């Protein structure tokens, strides 16, 4: 365990309690077709229109696995340095529910595709490694709608059979913040890899939250599992509430029942599901419709070769380029930002200055416009050109801001804007000297004060000169000439 400087504790009447958290994340694999059928996976289609006869479990229908879903799960495993099992197989998890047409979910219990791996997280100044026990591939269930009819639930099988990765962590997290950091990092990795779009509001990523509490140093307590929590904030809330609830129960002399619970996002609380626990005898056994899944080296090589540079490595590389740790962290958190920034570097921008500009100017502008970096009106090539104009003295900082605003508005290249609007910075000493002479002539009072010793008025003269030149004067030249003129 990392030596957390201030460990998270719940203050109970009987003393401090530690919370132990494990997460099972269901991440929808990015694929065109479902895991075992040729039906589409697009979000938001009309009910039951993305359903094949296989997904509806018609008599005699059989599953055939989608290579891309296997590939994405393997790449995800590689991205967290996990063991990839060249021999795995699919098992059936048997239970009856209206969203499960086959009466079983095809999943992997005994021989998952991906074994032990790890994810590094940061909370405050501490870094900590969270173990990943396994990643297995399985089918998603359909959807029930309860509010369309007074006595009936409606069944939509569009999601039925969509590929999921179940990413099971070790019970290594000790605070809501660590769980939040883990999910944030996991989501970032999935999006870098391209194996899951991470859209939590569309259900592409959901977490089952296992929580128990104990007195520090004691054995693990009994855990509860809060199902299908669909935002990082809700996961943190659910842990917060569930841990406090367990402490209350234990301190009142009660015991924790191992059970499945539901999170209510409106109240931020969890409640027990009505389901009968005796029904949880899933009778797992190998799916006899499918043979073992055997992966060859060529397949694994391709998976490995197609992995992008991952966030931790990229961040270290950025720091090596002289980018501040803070900027490196901000730039690598989201894959789109990192890709955009890489393109900016590829276009020749100087790393440190580019990082400052992106994290302040570009992110600020996008924020104001309500746009994602993918929707940025300015391309990395244009931005590199802008930064080059600043670097070679063509544009001052304030001119650069003006040009950038114009770029955001028009989408034009900075060179064109500078040309058209005459925004080029001037270092023409003759012109600047003429303006300085004018400024001094117009402000005899200030001139007298300055010469009388009020040197702070230097800035006033700079400002007046710049203003008179429409901001286009090279500030360094203005400084030099003013000093000379003021004597």
């Amino acid at each position, binding site marked *: 365990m990392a030596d957390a400087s201030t460990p998270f504790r719940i203050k109970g009447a009987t003393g401090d309690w530690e919370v132990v958290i494990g997460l099972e994340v269901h991440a929808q694999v990015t*694929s*065109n*077709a479902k895991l075992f*059928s*040729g*039906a*589409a996976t697009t979000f938001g289609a*009309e*009910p*039951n*229109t*993305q*359903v*094949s*006869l*296989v*997904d*509806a479990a018609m008599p005699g229908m059989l599953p*055939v*696995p*989608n*290579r*891309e*879903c*296997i590939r994405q799960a393997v790449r995800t495993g590689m991205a967290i340095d996990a063991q990839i099992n060249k021999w795995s*197989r699919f098992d059936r998890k048997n239970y*009856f529910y*209206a969203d499960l047409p086959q009466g079983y979910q095809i999943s992997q219990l005994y021989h998952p595709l991906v074994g032990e791996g790890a994810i590094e997280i940061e909370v405050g100044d501490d870094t900590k490694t969270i173990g990943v026990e396994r990643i297995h591939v399985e089918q998603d269930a359909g959807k*029930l*709608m*309860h509010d*369309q*009819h*007074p*006595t*009936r*639930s*409606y*069944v*939509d*099988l569009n999601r039925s059979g969509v590929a999921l990765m179940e990413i099971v962590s070790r019970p290594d997290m000790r605070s809501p913040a660590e769980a939040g950091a883990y999910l944030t990092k996991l989501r970032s990795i999935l999006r870098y890899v391209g194996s899951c779009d991470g859209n939590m509001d569309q259900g592409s990523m959901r977490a089952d939250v296992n929580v128990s509490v104990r007195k520090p140093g004691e054995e693990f307590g009994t855990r509860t599992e809060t199902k299908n929590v669909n935002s990082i904030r809700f996961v943190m809330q659910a842990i917060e509430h569930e841990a406090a609830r367990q402490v209350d129960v234990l301190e009142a002399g009660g015991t924790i029942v191992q059970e499945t619970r*539901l999170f209510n996002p409106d109240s931020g609380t969890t409640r027990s*599901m*009505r*389901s009968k626990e*005796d*029904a949880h*005898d899933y*009778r797992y056994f*190998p799916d006899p419709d*499918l*043979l*073992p*899944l*055997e992966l060859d080296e060529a397949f694994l090589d391709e998976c490995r070769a197609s992995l992008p540079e991952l966030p931790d490595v990229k961040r270290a590389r950025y720091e090596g380029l002289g980018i501040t740790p803070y900027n490196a962290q901000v730039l690598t958190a989201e894959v789109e930002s990192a890709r955009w920034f890489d393109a900016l570097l590829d276009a020749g921008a100087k790393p440190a200055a580019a990082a400052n500009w992106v994290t302040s100017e570009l992110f600020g502008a996008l924020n104001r416009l309500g746009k994602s970096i993918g929707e940025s009106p300015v391309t990395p090539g244009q931005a590199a050109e802008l930064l080059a104009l600043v670097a070679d003295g063509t544009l001052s900082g304030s001119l650069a801001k003006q040009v950038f605003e114009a770029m955001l508005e028009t989408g034009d290249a900075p060179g064109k804007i500078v040309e058209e609007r005459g925004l080029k910075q001037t270092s023409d000493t003759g012109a600047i000297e003429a303006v300085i002479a004018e400024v001094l002539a117009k402000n005899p009072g200030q001139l007298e004060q300055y010469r009388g010793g009020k040197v702070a008025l230097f800035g006033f003269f700079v400002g007046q000169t710049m203003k008179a030149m429409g901001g286009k004067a090279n500030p360094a030249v203005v400084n030099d000439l003013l000093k000379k003129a003021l004597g």
Partner: protein
Amino acid sequence: MSVDTATVRRIAGLARIAITDDEAARLAPELGNILDWIEQLGEVDTAGVEPMTAVIPNHLRLRDDVVTDGGVRDKVLANAPQAEHGFFTVPKVIE
């Protein structure tokens, strides 16, 4: 292995098959007999033997990630005992 009626009820519950008391009483010895008989498998020394995974040497073929199916809602719903507004329906479920 003698099977009692409580076990029969539990198994029938797992299998979602409603049974009456009479049926449970009839099934208990019947299933007990069959289970007694299959238990002779316990005699076989299977130490070091792998469970069968494929009867004929063959390996799992994978499908390309292309949409080849779906868009057949009428076919999917054609045999439904009750379908409404493009959905299957079931008695209301309270989660």
